[in-house]
């Protein structure tokens, strides 16, 4: 009973927030609605017993990703209304049919494969965080490390792309060059 009430409430809230995100013409409304939707999605993880995932969802999505988006939006002109695409009707129709077939496949998949076997069954007598740690650091250790390297690469790429004067290397330059560069900067600033 309680679970059903929570499910329908958060389903309604999530759907309405994401609908606002894809339909509004204001970029700031879209950003805030997306952040709210992310937090409401973490409620589903808590209902499903995946407590650690719910915390990760709030920390990573509403914390890191949304902060990154809001920093990125400082570069863009967000006060202007977002223009909509008036695309080819045939392409939109084809993509919609494809999406409908995909949705049927997604819903039918677990029902068809009803003889599914648990590969890493839930460990009895352990909390969710403990279970996640046990599986993540034994069976999925290599993908975990690869994901860490991927995040490092993404961080370096983000810094290099968005930073200023990233085509210069201070360690490869002489002292005089750095001095002259500093003097030029002071002239520009003053």
């Amino acid at each position, binding site marked *: 009973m309680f679970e059903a009430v929570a499910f329908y409430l958060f389903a309604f809230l999530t759907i309405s927030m994401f609908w606002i995100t*894809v339909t509004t013409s204001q970029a700031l409304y879209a950003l805030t609605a997306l952040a709210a939707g992310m937090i409401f999605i973490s409620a589903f993880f808590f209902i499903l017993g995946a407590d650690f995932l719910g915390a990760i969802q709030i920390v990573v999505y509403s914390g890191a990703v949304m902060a990154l988006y809001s920093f990125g939006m400082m570069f*863009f002109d967000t006060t202007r209304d977002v223009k909509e695409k008036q695309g080819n009707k045939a392409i939109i129709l084809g993509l919609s049919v494809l999406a409908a077939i995909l949705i049927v496949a997604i819903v039918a998949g677990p029902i068809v494969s009803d003889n599914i076997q648990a590969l890493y069954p839930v460990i009895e007598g352990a909390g969710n965080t403990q279970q996640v740690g046990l599986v993540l650091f034994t069976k999925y250790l290599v993908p975990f490390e690869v994901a860490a390297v991927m995040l490092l690469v993404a961080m370096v790429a983000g810094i290099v792309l968005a930073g200023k004067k990233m085509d210069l290397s201070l360690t490869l330059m002489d002292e005089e060059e750095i001095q002259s560069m500093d003097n030029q900067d002071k002239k520009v600033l003053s």
Partner: protein
Amino acid sequence: MMEIGLNHYLVLSTILFAIGLVGVMRRKNLLMLFFATEILLNSVNISFAAISHFYGDLTGQMFVFFVIAIAASEVAVGLGLLVVWHKKHNNIDLDTMTSMRG
């Protein structure tokens, strides 16, 4: 109706996925396309967590972790590229990116 099963979560996930697809199809601004991509990834995360719960298997939760990691790095690199493009061309509409120039 009152008993929440796996199908409820799958239907919710497909509704959110459809909303994300609507966003991808009708948006022109690249930042809004990124938002729609986040919605797509989140809808898949819900179905992974639901299947993990109802089949008593932890693999779904592991996949949600890796999807979240991929989403975070996608945002970092994508926003960096977007900032560079905005500095160069002063807009981030898709129409200006239809052809590749050096």
